[in-house]
């Protein structure tokens, strides 16, 4: 329990106006995109890493759990204050400190919104590729903590591939820096990579050094409709085998297409059973050649129709089809579990078939779409929570999906992380000794288990 004295101390550290115990504020910082709610005891909005360090030292002295939070848009509960305590809302740290055009490196604070950062660098002809669906509102700090992905990661890689260095407040309240603004650096352990995807359990990211690329000159988008799911899946493998890595290779199955048809005036012929949206970027001449080659590769694989966007407006219209899907899923059932398994690219067709079997056995609709180009499939288990028994069935189906992905050499999560949502399934993927190795790191860095306790590993909730 946090007492009045502790609140006073927090106020002294960050200023009275940045601390709140008002019930309305506690409610507003109690949720994320998992739709689970846990009330914190106090919400604190720190303005500097020094303030955060002081808060962490105090939290250790008094054994108060601290939950760092960016935009609160995670799908697995990484920012949820599951054990009361302090929500550390990092929104005030929202400056783009530097965009270094000579070295193609930028330095930012964690509260900068990803999409706004992209706009800022693109104005200078530079490029930050990771593009999670939430990019218009999620923050770079959250993206690093969860190691966010997105459609463009097929070609460019995920968040961690663009992070050169960090400033981090450790769980015990030290301020450290990892990596730096150089393109190479091998002195000591790679703590930058360790922090990426650590879900706020190993430290609080307070500054991020980001690698940038030159902005590609142009891009070309095409939408290809296939008469079978296998055709689409084979197309993915064939393109990669053809030594072309498109910028994006997005896939939608027939259930997804049906949703799109119902929700929008989407015109897709009846015989289309799967869709690929393929985008290439780079120099104008090159992408014309690539697009032509891709078209030649996919045509023999049961293509019903090919639409190629010639203008930015046409490209936007093709992407709109993909974006309309998420919302239209509600037509199937009101509630969804959005899982994000990832399998080796060549296993995508097999994985889709297994998911179809699971859906048939459980009697619960499962809709698949996602980033086929890197084997990352969004498996949406659609239920109506108000109907008794559906949640249990959904959980069984999800476990079956995870097991199937692991059997194919895949993983339970490509982008969303573990948080609390996937924590119960950890033993399916991580062997005892691997889990112990990870937990040893956590224990060493956070001996009092005050920083984001109960995330990733369920048993870290229990104190020693």
């Amino acid at each position, binding site marked *: 329990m946090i007492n009045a004295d502790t609140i006073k101390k927090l106020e002294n550290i960050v200023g009275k106006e940045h601390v709140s115990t008002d019930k309305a504020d506690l409610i507003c910082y109690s*949720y994320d995109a998992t739709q689970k709610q846990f009330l914190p005891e106090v919400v604190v909005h720190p303005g500097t890493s020094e303030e955060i360090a002081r808060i962490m030292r105090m939290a250790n002295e008094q054994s108060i759990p601290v939950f760092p939070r960016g935009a609160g848009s995670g799908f697995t509960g990484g920012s949820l204050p599951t054990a009361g305590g302090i929500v550390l809302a990092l929104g005030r740290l929202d400056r783009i400190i530097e965009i270094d055009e000579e070295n193609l490196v930028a330095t930012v604070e964690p509260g900068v919104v990803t999409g706004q950062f992209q706009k800022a660098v693109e104005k200078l002809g530079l490029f930050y590729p990771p593009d999670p669906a939430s990019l218009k509102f999620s923050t770079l700090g959250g993206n690093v903590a969860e190691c966010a992905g997105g459609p463009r990661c097929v070609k460019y890689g995920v968040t961690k591939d663009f992070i050169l260095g960090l400033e981090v407040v450790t769980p015990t309240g030290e301020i450290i820096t990892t990596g730096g603004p150089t393109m190479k650096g091998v002195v000591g352990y790679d703590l930058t990579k360790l922090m990426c995807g650590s879900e706020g359990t190993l430290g609080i990211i307070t500054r991020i050094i980001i690698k940038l690329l030159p902005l590609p000159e142009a891009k070309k988008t095409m939408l290809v409709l296939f008469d079978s799911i296998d055709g689409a899946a084979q197309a993915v493998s064939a393109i990669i085998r053809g030594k072309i890595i498109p910028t994006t290779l997005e896939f939608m199955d027939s259930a997804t297409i049906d949703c799109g048809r119902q929700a929008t005036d989407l015109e897709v012929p009846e015989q289309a059973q799967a869709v690929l949206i393929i985008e290439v970027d780079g120099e104008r001449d090159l992408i014309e050649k690539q697009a032509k080659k891709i078209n030649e590769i996919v045509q023999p694989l049961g293509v019903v129709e090919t639409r190629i966007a010639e203008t930015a407006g046409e490209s936007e219209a093709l992407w709109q089809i993909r974006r309309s899907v998420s919302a239209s899923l509600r037509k199937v059932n009101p509630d969804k579990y959005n899982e994000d398994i990832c399998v080796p690219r060549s296993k995508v067709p097999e994985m889709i078939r297994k998911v179809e079997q699971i859906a048939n056995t459980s009697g619960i609709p499962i809709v698949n779409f996602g980033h086929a180009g890197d084997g990352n499939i969004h498996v949406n288990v659609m239920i109506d929570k108000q109907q008794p028994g559906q949640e249990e069935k959904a959980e069984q189906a999800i476990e079956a999906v995870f097991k199937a992905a692991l059997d194919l050499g895949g993983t339970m999560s490509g982008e969303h992380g573990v948080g609390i949502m996937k924590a119960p399934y950890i033993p399916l993927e991580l062997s005892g000794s691997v889990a112990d190795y990870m937990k040893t790191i956590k224990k060493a860095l956070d001996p009092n288990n005050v920083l984001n306790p109960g995330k990733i590993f369920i048993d870290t909730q229990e104190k020693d």
Partner: protein
Amino acid sequence: MPKAKLKKLEDYQEQIRQCVKCGACRAHCPVFGAEKHEGLVARGKVALSQALLDGDVEMKDKFLLDMSQCLLCGSCCAECPNKVPTEEIVAAARREIASKKGLSTFGKGVSTVLKSQGLMKTLTKSASAFSALLFKKLPESSGLRLRIPLPFVDRERTLPPIASKTFREQHPEFIEGEPGQPTVAFFTGCGINYLYPEIGEAMLKALKFIGVNVVIPKDQGCCGLPAVSAGAGETVEQLADQNLEALNRKPVDHIVTACASCNAGLGKIYAEMGEPFEQMAAKVEDIFVFLARHGLPEKLAALPKKEKRVRVTYHDPCHLRTRGITKEPRQILKALPQVDYIEMADAGTCCGLGGTYSVYHYETSQKIGAKKAQNINDSQAEMVATDCPGCIMQLQDSINHAGQKQQAVHILNLLVEALDELG
């Protein structure tokens, strides 16, 4: 005659459930964009509304402040994957608060909290900025009283002068058109009637040009939108009853507006009140949609372009944009012979007025307005035209505070000149 009835907060339970807290609203809420606090964004307000329904939060302190911090612009709903109508939910929550704690709770509660934060100034002197005359002329139920209640108006705000004679006082109730033409009712709204009668004159000229019969009921009232914003549910219902009677006395084919707020007040709020209000709401049409339907853009485009032209940009009023009306006002503007049209960045973001919002949150409202003024300036336009007297008031205030020279006008003000040429 059935009486008007607004929905209660509990009637929105299903829509509240549909908010999955994804956070997409954080990218689109103008208030959140200015102040960055979760209680200000749609997702937070939906959570607070649920807490109110569940009895988990009391109607005081931050709760009141957060619920007051919404422009009801509808930008969040327009971009929400599940189309959760947060602006309706917030309005219903405000009515719930006002009905339990009295109508003045909102204003008083909010200003008390703000005062303690040093934001709300002592405002009695602002009377000098705004003629007391207005309040003698304004009926009790006019939304302008809610939008610019004297002691609360920040002395920094620049306001338009008051018309010595209101628009409706200057015109007969019925103006005959050409034979065989339909009849339209002109719903003036408070802004045109009391502050900008010249917009009304321009509107009449345009309607006469088309040749329709025009009805301007003397006893039409405020549309009720500012009362929706203030949580004054009963006032909204009374105004709906009054307007139904005024607008139904003569059979009319359309009810035209030149004010985005009135368009939404009549066309959207009334539409949710069941019959016969729904039927009335279905007749409501924005003046530019009406004029475009009658082929005016084509006629204007046929006029020779003037040698000396003025650079004009367009601001989308939220209450038209979120109802899908964005094309027609631009069509007319672009076709004007004396206009060089320029599209500004973020033309569709809110100006920051928001019903009664700017009264209690003038500083935030100014921050939102400052972004708009910057975009107007960057576009290099000499004028910003729009389709809403409320927006004009706010845009001009923001431009004045930025020390810029642009003029905020109604498209109708610019249309008059071209109508003369069309004969």
